[in-house]
């Protein structure tokens, strides 16, 4: 009996996955690419025999070959190895900043929407002020103030992303606080924390997921840009944005050095965009076209 239910459950899951992959082919490609990059980043020491930071001067400026699949840079470091290790900083910055922004923005949005009144006004005006800066400028201001480094990079990206999450969650919350089941819960004497935990948070999760995925693309780009400007992680730590800026001086003689890491930034952001698009279509059929 148990075995039977298990097998039907599996086949249903299989069917769902099949349907998703058929309907969202590009998203599937995107997911596979991101998973590949994540796996490569985690198992980098196993995947590549090369050290990403140690210079090997006799092997510098080697074009892509069987020995060095993506060639070597101006210090003779294997570019493929640097791409694999660099994925760690790039992806960590992207994921962590979005996670932080979701938590902060979600909290602000729920408090503003649920409490209303002057709390709502105060919080939303604060969000407006953050939004009156171009996002990348705000991130630059914050890293300029906090100094370089991974944690500061994450904080800087997250801060500029908070308002969009806050606004969205607030609008969702405003839409549901007046519904009957909330009124009923309040009538039964449910406290604010209870309502937020059991009614508001679950209802905001789908939109948060869509927004978070779409924002991830922005966050990865922003992180890469800050690293490119030299305001993020510090050399010799490998990072895709940093690799582009370090390789830029060889644009006339060995253009592959700055170009290759950028290909990986673009493909990763593109993959995330594919997934974000599919999720939005999936959860919001009205927008589908």
């Amino acid at each position, binding site marked *: 009996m148990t075995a039977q239910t298990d097998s039907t459950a599996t086949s249903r899951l299989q069917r769902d996955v099949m349907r998703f992959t058929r309907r969202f082919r590009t998203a599937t490609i995107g997911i596979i690419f991101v998973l590949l990059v994540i796996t490569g980043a985690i198992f980098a020491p196993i995947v590549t025999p090369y050290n990403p930071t140690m210079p090997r001067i006799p092997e510098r400026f080697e074009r892509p070959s069987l020995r060095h699949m993506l060639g070597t840079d101006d210090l003779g470091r294997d570019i493929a190895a640097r791409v694999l290790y660099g994925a760690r900083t790039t992806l960590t910055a992207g994921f962590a900043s979005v996670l932080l922004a979701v938590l902060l923005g979600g909290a602000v949005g729920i408090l503003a929407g649920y409490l209303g009144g002057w709390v709502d006004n105060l919080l939303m005006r604060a969000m407006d002020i953050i939004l009156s800066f171009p996002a990348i400028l705000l991130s630059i201001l*914050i890293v*300029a*103030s906090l100094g370089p480094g991974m944690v500061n990079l994450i904080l800087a990206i997250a801060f500029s992303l908070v308002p969009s999450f806050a606004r969205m969650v607030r609008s969702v919350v405003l839409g549901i606080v007046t519904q009957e089941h909330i009124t009923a819960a309040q009538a039964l004497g449910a406290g604010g924390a209870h309502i937020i935990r059991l009614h508001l948070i679950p209802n905001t999760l789908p939109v948060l997921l869509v927004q978070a995925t779409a924002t991830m693309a922005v966050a990865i780009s922003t992180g890469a840009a800050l690293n490119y400007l030299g305001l993020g992680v510090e050399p010799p730590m490998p990072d895709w944005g940093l690799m582009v800026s370090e390789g830029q001086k060889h644009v006339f003689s060995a253009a592959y050095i700055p170009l290759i890491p950028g290909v990986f930034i673009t493909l990763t*952001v593109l993959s995330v965009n594919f997934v974000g698009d599919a999720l939005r279509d999936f959860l919001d059929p009205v927008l589908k076209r």
Partner: protein
Amino acid sequence: MKYALTRLLWLPIVLWAVATLTFGALRLVPGNASDVIFSLNLPQEQVERFKAQWNLDKPVSQQYVAFLSDMLHGDLGTSMTSAVPITRLMYERIPPTIELAVTAMVLSAFIGVLAGIVSAVTRNRALDFVVRSTSLLGMSVPWFWIAIVLIVVFAVQLRVLPVGGRIEGGMNYERITNFMVIDMLMTKNWAALSSHLRHLLLPSLAIGLTSAGFITRLTRAAMLEVMNRDYVRTARAKGLPERRVIFQHALRNGLLPVLTFLGLQFGTLLGGAVITEIVFSWPGLGRLLLDGILRRDYPVVQATVIVVASIYVMVNLTIDVLYHVIDPRLRGR
């Protein structure tokens, strides 16, 4: 009218908030730029003199009051490293950045709207698929990297376009407004103008391509939306050529959301200009900002951030108000 007035009344408050946030971010956070000067192991006396000169010996509240009063008098402070008044630096640096952002906006609007129409008209056919994938690719490419790709293709391989600076070195031109296009048109200096435009093309393309991707998608969606409307069907039914149906009936209404988006996009383009200037050694606000950060010249950082954000706020305000003027449905709200 009432709407425009309310928005205008809010403007000083928004600008004050922008200035205050910038001031606060650079001072209240531990390990801020102004502390670095004191970690340089200079003689005590020199540090004291430096502190007094930059008001750093006073409490933050007094610094803030002095800062606000300076701002109200149009004084952005003095550069710590070059002792030049920042207001003068701004005269040098604002026009190049605006040039880039505006050119990028024009290019991205042109490419985006055109591609969006093509995509909508050929909906779900091969060409539509190509345009849609390209626009998504365009949205995903980071500015600084597409800038390098453009350099490799057009300057290194094809050798058709120059890289670096706003104009060929050694070329003579007269400075009036410091907006090169305007100055050169006024003085009818065609040789310099052509050189400047050729220098302008790659950086603004690098900034604009990302926005062009967004605009393509938006235009496509907006066009598809209006193409299903009754008045478009009527236009078709009365036998108008398809071209007129698309350009005169559908496009006019379809473009409204695109216009608003262009306004919002200006901030992104300004940000893009800040980054792309670094790649092309373009002497604008982005270069100034990054140099300020690297040299710990925090009055320059502070002034640049405030100026860029203020430009952004004012452009958004203008677009918003214009939008209300253009669209009669929004009047009286």
